[in-house]
């Protein structure tokens, strides 16, 4: 199949999903308040920052194996929220980064966050560190940093791969409070095992939307939710009625 086949639903499905999400975006932009349930992770983030302040040791925020992609953008957005809290509590925030583009982006977002919390003088550009683009070089750099700075709280948000457990285990051995969130499904079990709080899969996007309250993100999460509900409904109805449906409907739903 080198081109989409117009006689199956799959040629239209991405556009239906896109339209639903687009609808969410439009509604949110227009100022409609769209409901997203409060996730327990949000309280945990605040608590963890407070804990670092009590201990007088820095906070670490790892935006994952960063790439120029959406999970990383959202991680940077969360970092902005955490930085605002940290600035308010006068606690140092360290952020190792593995991508140059994200590096400059993070610098700008954090600078703004510190300024908006009235702590511009606390912002130290050298606390955002570019380590390496290579996965394990980055991981070994981060564990070095964690050990040297004896961090009290660690946030892991973004894309992670095998280095997830290396980082989380190191934090655990330092006795740090750790909160993780990742859309990389395979790493979630290790975060569950080694972190105090874990945001699972899709919740990641919802957390960002909830934290930032940005209409675009809220609308998008809401739209995605509606798309998933539609998809689940479709699967349920089709499966339940498979036995009597005429052949042409079935073939409309079959991929080949």
């Amino acid at each position, binding site marked *: *199949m*080198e081109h989409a086949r117009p006689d199956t639903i799959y040629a239209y499905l991405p556009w239906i999903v896109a339209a639903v999400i687009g609808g969410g975006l439009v509604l949110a932009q227009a100022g409609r308040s769209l409901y997203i349930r409060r996730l327990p992770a949000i309280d945990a983030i605040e608590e963890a920052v407070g804990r670092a302040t009590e201990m007088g040791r820095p906070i670490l925020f790892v935006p994952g194996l960063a790439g120029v992609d959406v999970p990383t953008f959202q991680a940077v957005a969360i970092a902005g929220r955490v930085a605002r809290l940290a600035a308010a509590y006068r606690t140092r925030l360290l952020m190792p980064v593995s991508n140059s583009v994200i590096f400059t982006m993070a610098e700008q977002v954090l600078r703004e966050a510190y300024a908006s919390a009235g702590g511009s003088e606390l912002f130290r550009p050298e606390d955002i560190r570019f380590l390496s683009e290579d996965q394990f070089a980055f991981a070994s750099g981060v564990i070095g940093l964690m050990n040297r700075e004896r961090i009290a709280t660690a946030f892991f948000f973004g894309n992670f*791969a*095998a280095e997830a457990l290396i980082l989380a285990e190191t934090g655990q*051995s330092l006795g740090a409070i750790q909160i993780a969130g990742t859309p990389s499904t*395979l790493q979630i079990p290790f975060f569950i095992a080694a972190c105090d709080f874990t945001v699972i899969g899709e919740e990641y996007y919802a957390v960002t939307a909830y934290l930032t309250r940005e209409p675009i993100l809220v609308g998008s999460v809401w739209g995605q939710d509606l798309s998933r509900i539609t998809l689940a409904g479709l699967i349920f109805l089709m499966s339940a009625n498979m036995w009597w449906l005429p052949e042409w409907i079935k073939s409309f739903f079959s991929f080949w």
Partner: protein
Amino acid sequence: MWGRWGVYLLVALAITLPMVLPVRIRMVPTPPVRSFFRMVEQIPKGKALMIAADFDTGTEGENGPQVEAVLEHAMSRKIPILIMGTAIQGPELVQSYAEDLAKKYDYRYGRDFVNLGYLPGGQPVLEKLGRSIWQTKPTDYQGKPLSQLPMMRRVRTAKDIALVAEFTGAGVLPWYIQTFWAQFRVPLAQGCTGIIGPEQFPYLDSGQLSGLMTGLTGAAQYEHLIKAPKRAYRRMIPQNFAHITVIVLIVLANIRLFAERARRLRGR
């Protein structure tokens, strides 16, 4: 700290000691491994098997024995083999396995197997490869033009490939699904590391994957199917003991937990 060091030491000993001890084990193949075996068994005459070596030495411990087992199987059936990889070191590793096995099965480079080498660029490049191998990679891994390799006269596009066997420790399977499977209808079988194994089962259910070999166990099971226990089998022995160690550790930790709980209850 001491508890942690103790665990580390136990793991190190559980793995290194069995390496120098003589032990025997028995493997039981699972259905996905059997269907992988069947896919290779069913390759028709004249069509090639493509081995996608998408792993580096990082995961060689698992993917290496898997490739070796499949290579041995394909060579015993005289199937032409095309090797390539989207990871830098993969194709060269597979080349060294293939050369070792070639003597036994009278395989000659260029006539019976060809190595295209490293193909960077991900999905778009694979799409191009499926349309035309010669245009995508006009030379083999040593820079020799394909026109000098007799096997390549018969292997030009995805149509000449009967099965893509992909070996990886990373999530690159979608690249092959979006190209070889969906666009050119070439069946896929995968040998993957233990960690990404569970993630492949939806694809197995939907038929996008026709066979799956997970981790070292999968490799050892495949070796059992082709009746040639080698490296995977040998490495399963320390694996065995390390697993038992971890299982015992978990049981101990839970006994301790319950003992503490019981003591607290009694104390109250």
